[in-house]
């Protein structure tokens, strides 16, 4: 039974393929592809009428919805239906209502060697009788270049030397670290495993130089370079929050909690391209595309327990550029 059905299916496929093939080969015998058939079936005319009427009704629906109850979904449905009905009407028109035509048009030749010669000749004639041709051409060139420069120079208004801005940060020794609301951050408020965003007191929070992340780690695990020995009081570390790869905010903190994952050191991760910076060794790149370590901010804790900068950032904040001094 199954076999018979299978055989029937194969036969059917073969027959269809044969049919398609035959049609194609018939057509190819006739080298003149031009053909025209006319005569619209009655059903097509009726269908187009119905579709056009429905288009008008749907459009009216959209108009009244817009005035009465502009709900996004309903508006989309109404206008979408209007356009879809119009599309259907147009397609039925083009396929069944109007004469079906296939035409052959001669493709125009593009190249015309005679015309090229004539143009060359005419262009040459335009300079007839001028003796100091080269000098004039040179002068015209100079004039053109001058006008171009005059038109282009206003672009300079976009920026005088703003490059100093790229190096600037608001951090210097003694500046307090504050939170989102401007309240000073206490050293005791930063727990191991937590991740706090801090800003330079009284600085613009949107200034790339300002935001830092503060984390606390076990002091015994620190592997900071020797010249940064005093930068992490109580194991508190601060790094620029702006990724040195592409300026996104570092907003992920990998802080292994279970013994099975503690083989990997705590790291700051940028969510844009997943540059991963080692917290313990001074912000070195552990994975990802960043080419430079995260700048570190040396910290101190004042008598009131408030976190303060103990000096400037260790390097330029944010992405690198040609000639920066990192």
């Amino acid at each position, binding site marked *: 039974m199954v076999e018979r059905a299978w055989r029937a299916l194969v036969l059917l496929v073969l027959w269809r393929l044969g049919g398609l093939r035959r049609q194609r080969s018939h057509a190819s015998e006739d080298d003149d592809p031009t053909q025209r058939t006319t005569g619209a079936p009655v059903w097509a005319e009726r269908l187009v009428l119905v579709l056009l009427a429905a288009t008008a009704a749907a459009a009216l629906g959209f108009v009244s919805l817009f005035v009465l109850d502009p709900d996004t979904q309903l508006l989309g449905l109404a206008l979408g239906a209007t356009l879809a009905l119009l599309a259907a009407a147009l397609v039925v028109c083009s396929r069944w209502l109007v004469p079906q035509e296939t035409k*052959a048009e001669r493709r125009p030749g593009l190249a015309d060697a005679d015309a090229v010669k004539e143009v060359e000749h005419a262009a040459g004639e335009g300079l007839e009788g001028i003796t100091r041709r080269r000098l004039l051409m040179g002068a015209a060139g100079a004039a053109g270049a001058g006008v171009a420069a005059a038109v282009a120079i206003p672009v300079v208004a976009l920026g005088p030397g703003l490059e100093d801005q790229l190096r600037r940060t608001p951090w210097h020794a003694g500046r307090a670290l504050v939170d989102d609301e401007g309240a000073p951050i206490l050293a005791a408020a930063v727990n191991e495993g937590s991740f706090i965003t801090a800003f330079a007191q009284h600085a613009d929070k949107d200034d790339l130089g300002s935001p830092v992340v503060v984390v606390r780690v076990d002091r015994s695990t620190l592997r900071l370079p020797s010249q940064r020995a005093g930068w992490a009081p109580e194991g508190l570390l601060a790094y620029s929050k702006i990724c040195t790869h592409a300026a996104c905010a570092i907003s992920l903190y990998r802080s292994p909690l279970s013994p099975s994952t503690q083989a990997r050191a705590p790291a700051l991760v940028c969510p844009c391209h997943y540059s991963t910076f080692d917290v313990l060794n001074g912000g070195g790149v552990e994975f990802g595309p960043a080419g430079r370590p995260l700048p570190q901010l040396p910290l101190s804790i004042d008598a009131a327990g408030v976190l303060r900068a103990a000096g400037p950032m260790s390097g330029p904040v944010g992405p690198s550029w040609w000639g*920066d001094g990192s």
Partner: protein
Amino acid sequence: MSLLPRSHTRDPLAFVDERLGAARGLRFLIDYVFPDHWSFLLGEIALYSFVVLVASGTFLALFFDPSTTQLTYHGGYAPLQGQAMSAAYASTLHISFAVSGGLLARQVHHWTALVFIAAITLHLLRIVFTGAFRKPRDVNYFIGVTMLALAILEGFAGYSLPDDLLSGMGLAIAWAVAMSLPLIGGPFATALWGGRFPGADAFESRLYIAHVFLLPALLAALIAVHLAIIMIQRHSQFAGPGRREDNVVGTPMWPGYALRSLGLFAAVAAVLVLMGGLIQVNPVWLWGPYHPYVGTNGAQPDWYLGWLIGALRLMPNLEIHVLGHTIVPNPFFGGVLFPSIVFALLYALPWLDRRFISKDYRRHDLLQRPRDNPRRTALAASVFAAVAVVFAAGSVDRLFFQFGFGYEGAIWFFRGAFLLAPALVYWLTRRLCIELARNDAHPLRRWDGVVVARNERGGFEELAASRAGGVSSSGARSSANRRGVRRPLRRRARRCG
């Protein structure tokens, strides 16, 4: 025919013709022939998407406020009540929640931008794989590639305008990429942004004028030139009955094609409006306002930037420093070098093809099927495979969120795939093309006959000995050969079998 002058009250056509001589041009348009193939509609879909973009974008511009002036939100969206945000973001919320049809217009605009660039890309693939970029269409091909680049810029500028969290993160990356340009990076980026990122308030205004005037005006002008050049050269067409290099066979503009194309316009617009009405896209109110110190995880850009974020992510942490000074910052490789190479290859394709691949300097108006030129098809496929791998790598973080694949391992996998996939795809595509070309004669039975031709005495003469001999080593065969000489044999085979 009446000897009286035709009255314009009765005859608007005559009215126009007497003043502009338009009838002759209309006559040309009415007879203008469009060859039929579904793949020719891709460019039209891009064109109609552009129209929808202009219409929906104009509506949005009536309400959008391109300003980063900070204000406190007091609009209708409760979760953001009392938050500090820019006027640009607040007006985007206003468009989404308070303007009648505003959210529909925003979502239609966004979906259409996605479809616009998708249609251009598919159109480009069609052009590349059918050899439609060959002389005389190389000029128009350059314009098309330029429009693709402009469309990507235009899309990114639009995505960046609302000043929501994701648009800000995108701009931060764009700024870093601008900074990474050799020699001029620092001054160039600071000049463009009016300072260090996030830049001066004027930057939003610069972005706006680029998005609503400079880039769309350029695109519109190039579209006009693109279409004018098509009309001068006429459309290319696939080989077929009666179709030759020196003619165009198809449906004339009036009535068949004009109605069909208008139908396509309405259908494209219908789909886009339905998408805009029913499928949410970029709900900026959920992302919140942007500040340089906030970020989110698992964010993805619009699809057409996926290949750039992928390139930035795949690049190892190479950064070239000399004497303590940076020379080549890392984002240069993924953000500048990689797209420059891809576009350079696209621009160079006509020259590469005529000089090295096809070694053919002649004019061509008949298209090739991909299998007709296996070497070109395979080369193009391998380049697109490399780009596709990088594109896929752009969503590696989503692979982690959805399926739990480790991020770092996946990056190494994609780095390997980037190196291996092109070679593999080249080999596979080439084999596939050659097999397809061989099996052209019959899809079911392999052809094992001989090629014969009728001679003057009415007999048959053998032209090529065997199947293997009948197919050239490259697998390419002219369409005339395929359709002309083979046919009698195929029919004879059917009669026998």
